């Protein structure tokens, strides 16, 4: 079954949360600054969240493995939107085709979601967690 638009949006949120769990301080600085920032994942699953204020390197393999597509690479451009909203455009390379997805979300809501028990529980289970998925969906589908 093809991954849905919602699943792809949730995957982008999860990648930011993996960066956050890798380096809370730098990730928070990157996503809260007013300028733009980037997220890239290469064909080996090496991910990088970066802006002029810093870089966080992490592995995206576990997160991307759960998507129903053979993903070669991912590139996401984030820019500041109205208020606390962040706008993004993602390009997902699936070798002979690409999928582009655009959207916006509240970065504070995303960071808060990952400070809570829900997020920690989901990570410790290392599997799908309905409550966590639903919370991410709510944030990403504003």
């Amino acid at each position: 079954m093809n991954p849905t638009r919602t699943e792809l949006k949730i995957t982008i949120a999860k990648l930011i949360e993996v960066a956050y769990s890798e380096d809370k301080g730098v990730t928070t600085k990157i996503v809260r600054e007013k300028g733009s920032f980037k997220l890239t994942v290469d064909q080996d699953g090496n991910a990088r969240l970066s802006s002029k204020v810093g870089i966080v390197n992490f592995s995206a393999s576990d997160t991307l493995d759960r998507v129903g597509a053979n993903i070669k690479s991912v590139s996401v451009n984030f820019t500041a939107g109205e208020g606390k909203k962040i706008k993004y455009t993602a390009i997902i390379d699936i070798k002979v085709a690409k999928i582009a997805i655009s959207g916006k979300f509240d970065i504070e809501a995303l960071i808060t979601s990952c400070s809570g028990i829900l997020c920690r529980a989901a990570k410790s289970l290392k599997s799908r967690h309905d409550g966590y998925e639903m919370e991410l969906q709510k944030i990403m589908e504003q």
Partner: protein
Amino acid sequence: MKLFVSLMLSLVLYGCSMLKTEQTDLYKEYIKQAQAVENNTMVSNRSSFFTSEYLKEVDLADEKSLLVLNLSKYVHQEFSHYQKIEGQKGCLSINGIENNKDPVSLYLEYKKERGLWLVDYMFLHLMESSEDYAKEALCPREVESMIFK
């Protein structure tokens, strides 16, 4: 004289009809492709729709790999389309909605291979607003450079 005029007219009409049948309609090719996806016959008929280079990336044993054969499924209802052809290459842009009514555009690049117009590359745009719909025929790589600067 009348016979000569009738004969000439018939020849002209025949010539026009031949020209018409030789026109390439990539949209018709797309409809066949989308129907094969809907009817679950795409895997067995894949070489009728995709180039050999494209199919090199499809591993039939891996369900995730089949996504690239089924991208037309995201277009639940189609509203408009545009095509352009330059020599042995053609591009088709499709605008429509997903089954939840979200706007979507699918851009297909075709290449002539074995006398058939076959898909060689695709770009699916899951956009936020229908304002971003294709307004002309664009090739997948052209769209990518426009939306991802």
